[in-house]
């Protein structure tokens, strides 16, 4: 479904992606783990088009999307969340999600009819919000949400865009135990609908969700395998997991 081939990226002298290749098949959840500053977010930025790679290719469903702009990739089916929450602060929670739904349903070059009255958009948004557990917050301005609530909204926005492939950048961060557990269940359900690439420091989540794990250190993939293989991998342990996991 998603394939990355020989991706390189540097910021000045700092190389953050060194020959990264990986692929994710339909129905799969592929986790990328690695120390802070290893280049995980940068990788997601490159896949989603927020940053341009220096060289290499990104393929979505066999199509080369490397030179498409961000919105074109989204229209082609990529969805993503941001590690540092990014929502529409002056919109209500519902309208945040409805706006994401709107992008994928019909033209937005409509100038006269009230968008807020479109039942189809609102229903889908409402359903998505209920799924992530924000069902009782829909009328709040997004700016008024607590940190954890914002993290959930971030996920709802990504899901509402009906992606074919989902990039998740630390979705569990900021969530409480309960909320994390619920989100793990939700993502588990969704996995059959669309494959995903998960970046996460919460190892419980990674080991519960991932079919395959890549360990990224200093911009390079140093180990790859099933969760249990990676857990035993000495390189991964030394660089990242420590002895706790």
């Amino acid at each position, binding site marked *: 479904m998603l394939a990355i081939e020989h991706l390189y990226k540097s910021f000045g002298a700092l190389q953050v992606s060194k020959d990264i290749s990986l692929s994710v098949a339909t129905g799969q959840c592929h986790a990328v783990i690695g120390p802070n500053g290893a280049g995980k977010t940068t990788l997601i930025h490159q896949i989603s088009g927020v940053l341009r790679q220096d060289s290499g290719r990104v393929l979505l469903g066999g199509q080369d999307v490397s030179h498409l702009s961000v919105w074109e990739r989204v229209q082609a089916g990529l969805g993503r969340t941001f590690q540092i929450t990014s929502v529409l602060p002056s919109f209500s929670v519902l309208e945040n999600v409805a706006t994401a739904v709107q992008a994928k349903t019909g033209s937005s070059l409509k100038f006269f009819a009230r968008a807020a009255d479109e039942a189809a958009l609102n229903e889908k948004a409402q359903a998505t919000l209920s799924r992530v557990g924000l069902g009782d917050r829909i009328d709040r301005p997004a700016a008024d949400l607590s940190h954890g609530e914002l993290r959930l909204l971030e996920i709802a*926005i990504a899901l509402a865009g009906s992606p074919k492939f989902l990039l998740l950048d630390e979705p569990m961060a900021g969530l409480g135990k309960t909320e994390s557990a619920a989100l793990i269940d939700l993502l588990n359900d969704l996995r059959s609908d669309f494959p995903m690439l998960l970046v996460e420091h919460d190892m419980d989540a990674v080991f519960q969700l991932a079919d395959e794990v890549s360990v990224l250190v200093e911009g390079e993939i140093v180990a790859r395998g099933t969760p249990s293989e990676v857990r035993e991998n000495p390189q991964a342990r030394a660089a990242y997991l420590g002895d706790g996991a």
Partner: protein
Amino acid sequence: MMDRGALIGGVIFALLLAMPVLLPIVGAEYLTGLLIKAMLLAIAAISLDLIIGHGGMVSLGHAAFIGVGAYATAIGLESGIEEILVLLAITLAVTGGLALVTGTLALRTSGVYFLMITLAFGQMIYFTLTSLAAYGGDDGLTLWSLATFFGSDIVQEGEGLYFFVFAALFLTWLGVWRISQSRFGRVLRAARDNPQRAEVMGYPIARYQLIAYVIAACIAGVSGLLLVQYAEFVSPSIAAWQRSGDLIVAVVLGGLGSRNGAILGAFFIVIMEEFLSSIFHEWRLIYGPLLVVLVLYAKGGLNDLLHPKSREAS
């Protein structure tokens, strides 16, 4: 469905509609000119609010489009075109085309950089107008013939012109409000709030912003056309950056992105200037501090004074 905003809007328009009847009764027909001037300012202010209030694109070159519209009309008139609908088509084509070009370039930037690049384009237009020696240069041009409506001179003076401008204001008000609430308007507001997020939702935001920019410019152009009908005169000074500043003041004072704010702001400015300057020659000593006080104490603009705590658009 009659919400508060529609109610206030309805009252404003009902009052404006009744003015030609009311003013003669109280012997104040001379106010018609003032009202036309205020309505013209309001049209331009509403169009500016589309891009500032809803689109987050603060333009300091908006008056240039009024100037371009006015000059397109004036030059049309000078070369013998008198039908207002033809002049309208010319005005829309010229302002729209110009906005398409300058907007494409300007939208590479955002925030205060956008403000300044629009200022730059506005100034270029302004200086170009001042060098049109054939059309009066800096001094401007008195128009000895005006536009007609299907050959009739009904849109030239007095009530005919008043209602024509009124209709334009109403359509602008309604149109911009509907746009702001439409799917298009929602994308525009999303791009204002968080451009990166809107892009990652799948919207080519620059395209939406450009469309809004062109729409706003076209409306401003129309107000320029009407200004020619009213003033029977054009001069480059209508395109000066200070005029764009006045428009921003009207929009902000009225209340950004609100349904009636731009109208309220425009009328406030015109009426206060008229009123204060008639009682006190150094009226600016009052007007300046008044603006400061309004900013400090009426946080959502004049609109919020009438309409507290329910910002509609956002």
